[in-house]
């Protein structure tokens, strides 16, 4: 499948998603297609943003890629490892940061980093040096030996990000990483994510904050009701819609999808 994004350098994708579908079954809601046949690729040194409202399917997509959920149909690979056949290899290749910091409250920041480095396969003899490196880089030395439950939200967020990259994975997944953060902490977070991109990591990033997507993402996929309705660079999206603000572009595609709802439009490919 040819790439839809010509500005992206022609290197091998680290994440490939093909016809990925995830259906939930619930007594009250019946059959719910949370992700409905989406396609996209991500490459090294790229921030790929999934932009959508609450319930659009962003988190489900990321959870499927992180092997927490099984896809109902379709396939995906991370660093060449298939989700279905090599889930452990997939997990070792990525760092996943959920919407909450999800840290162990009774561990210190240092112990947290040590634990996640070891459990993700970092060689035992390199764990100590790696932990010190992370403490320096994220500036958490002052509270490295304080239990996590005694840290502020901003400090916890830094520890959570450091934990995500503890084993230095090539692919990073951030699910709404700035939710609940104040402006300064959110800015710090954005800087960190941009720095990871500059190091050549592949970053999958979900958000419903337009300014954040506009600022960070190299390519943006607009996802609504489980389908990708547009996927390109911001400039291309502007050119395609004739609109300047990402918020207007987002609303344009959502309205378009609503008007086509009866016609069951196919998902836009972003590969």
């Amino acid at each position, binding site marked *: 499948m040819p790439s839809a994004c010509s500005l992206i350098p022609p290197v091998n994708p680290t994440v490939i998603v093909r016809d990925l579908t995830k259906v939930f*079954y*619930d*007594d009250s809601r019946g059959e719910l297609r949370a992700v409905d046949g989406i396609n996209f690729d991500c490459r090294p040194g790229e921030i790929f943003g999934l932009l959508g409202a609450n319930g659009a399917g962003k988190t489900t997509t990321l959870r499927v890629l992180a092997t*927490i*959920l*099984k896809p109902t149909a379709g396939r995906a690979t991370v660093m060449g490892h298939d989700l279905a056949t090599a*889930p452990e290899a997939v997990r070792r290749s990525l760092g996943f940061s959920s919407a909450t*910091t999800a840290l162990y409250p009774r561990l210190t920041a240092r112990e947290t980093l040590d634990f996640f480095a070891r459990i993700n396969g970092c060689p035992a003899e390199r764990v100590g040096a790696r932990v010190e490196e992370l403490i320096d880089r994220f500036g958490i030395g002052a509270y490295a030996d304080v239990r996590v439950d005694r840290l502020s939200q901003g400090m916890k967020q830094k520890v959570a990000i450091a934990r995500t990259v503890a084993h230095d994975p090539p692919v990073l997944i951030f699910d709404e990483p700035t939710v609940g953060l104040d402006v300064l902490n959110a800015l710090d977070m954005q800087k960190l994510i941009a720095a990871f991109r500059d190091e050549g990591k592949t970053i999958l990033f979900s958000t419903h904050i337009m300014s954040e997507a506009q600022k960070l993402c190299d390519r943006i996929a607009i996802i609504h009701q489980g389908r990708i309705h547009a996927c390109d660079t911001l400039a291309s999206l502007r050119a395609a819609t004739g609109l300047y603000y990402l918020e207007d572009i987002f609303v344009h595609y959502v309205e378009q999808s609503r008007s086509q709802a009866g016609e069951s439009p196919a998902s836009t490919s972003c590969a």
Partner: protein
Amino acid sequence: MRLNWSTLATLYRTELRMVLRDRRLLLTSVVLPILVMPLMFLGSNWSLKKREAKLQSLACRYAVQGPEAEWVRDLMSRTRERLAAEPKGTNTAPFEFEEVACTNALAALEQGEIHVILEGGKTPAGAAGPAGEPAGPAAASRKPELRPRSNSAPAPLPRSLRLVFMGNHDESVTCAHRLQEALEATRRAERVALLLERGLPAPPDKIAAFSLVDVATPGQVAGVNLGRVLTLLLVLFMLTGGAVVALDSLAGEKERGTLETLLTTGATRLEIVVAKHLLIITVALGITLAQVANLLVYVGLKLVPVPGSLAAAVTPATGALLLVLLLPVAALASGILLLASGRARTYKEAQFYFFPLFLLGLVPAVAPLLPGLPLRSAVAIVPVANIAMGVREVLIGSFDWPMLALAWVTTAAAAAWTTRGVLGYLSAERLITSSERDEIEFLGGLPLFRRRVWAWFAVLWAVLLVVSSYLEKADLRLQLLVNLVGVFFLGSLLMLRTYRLDPRQALALRQPRPAVWLGVLFAVPGGMLAAIGAFHLLNFVIPVPPQVLEGFQQNVLPQDIPFVQLLFFLSVLPAFFEEIAFRGLLLHGLVGRFRPVTVAVLVGVVFGLFHLALFRFAPTACLGVMLAAVTLLTGSIYPAMLWHFLSNLGGVLAARFDIPLAHLDAGGYLAGAGILCAAFWILWRNRTPYPGLNAWRDTRPRASQACDE
């Protein structure tokens, strides 16, 4: 699936570190019991001693009333004299009692002014009370006499004495019991004196005297007492000690969101579950050891009494064996806790599950308290109960190795099953999504039935066990009707209805090829002999006492049931209802999940287990495998029904007419196996395989593993 020991160690170490930093756990599970236990012992010892001292020094106040009050006073006076005359040390409890004059004795008793009312009266004929005395003028004299009763004179009404007391007052109860004992002793002494005076050569208790001689060693006596409660205590400590950790371990992690993070790491589900298992076992055993050590301190301080022979019951070798035996119990308790924790979405929800699980966990552990229940029975395959029985037998000094091994394997298998269940929960999406069900649960039908078939048959087995124990002494026909119709058939109908299964598919109601009937006719004698041969083989490992077999034959073939009825109940009904349940639904639930040989073996083993007697397991399981095999080969239940009917018919006829099928030589059974092979050759040649049957061998490519390992 392989374990990465380094990852496992990291998980375990980190989890343990977090537990040790949990002040709530340390406070409620370690510190509080350590502080509370001595206070409890000291308090209860102090209170008991004080109560005993108070009751010992109690001067019993009583009132006398009734038409025979004078006789009662006389009796009390004689009792007082007897007690005073007793040498010191004979009377274990010095006893003082005094009469109090009351106008309303009952009110005085209620107000605690007196402890007992002694009511003297006459007992109507035929209702002499326990304290009744022979009546007559001489009876009122100080020295009782025996009078020859005149045949012509009407028998005078005997006197009686009622001791009225308040059961809710300690002092009143104690006084009543002491007075009763003292009065009865007086009567005994007077009777003996009278008999000796009238020429009895020796005191009555020396004539044809009997005595009890216990040949068990003190260690064995202590062992049987310890064995009754040891497993119960372990389960109790495991469940209470491990609960806080287990509930926090999965449900708490879910609530905090850390489980989602953990599931995206390089650790496999199995490594996560094993680490959590080890953690719970470590913590629960740690808490148990802390409590035992605490207890030993109080034993050392003589605050808690223990029999001195206890050490004799637990030698180092016995201790090691007990440890091995109890290991799967600890793993099972830990697995059950993790299951509850994995099932729940929140810590609070997990707490709701805990109490019923706690009770359910304790029920099998009380098996050794049931009188007359041996390990060599159906209990040998009931997890926890079998280990509890095994522990008791080991402590008594009776080592029934095959049964101990069976008990260990069964409970270990149950522990493994719970681990598998926890793994399932970790892979289940409801763990982290709001969706309650997966596709199979949502759509129902055959796929859901296949997922739940084991649970259904486990419940049926438990129901059968309970029903059978209730109906053990009932009429054979009633037992069979309840088991076959009430349990198997109703259970089968419920399964068909719940999962909307097509009866023709689920029960394999298809016509086989005509030659199959010929194969079945050959198979019946061959199968019977092969099954009996299997029984003989197993008998080498687990010998069955002949009296058990004779008892079974008498129960199954009672003389009071007409022979025709026996044939109907033992041959026709099982062939119909058991086949519907086992070669119908059970087999239908397993086909598609396993390869054919595995299906046949599993159906046979379950069929054997449902016969609830260890010595019947081998032959019935053997028959079950063959019946499943013929159903798989022919795709029809009818040949199995015919085979089952003829096989049971043959068994009943052989027993009724003393045909010595069970006493053939090896050649006879080998010939039977040969006939069976020939029969299966016919069946194979005319096979119309069961629809949806998996390939005999796994030819699928290895690459199609599930996402969740």
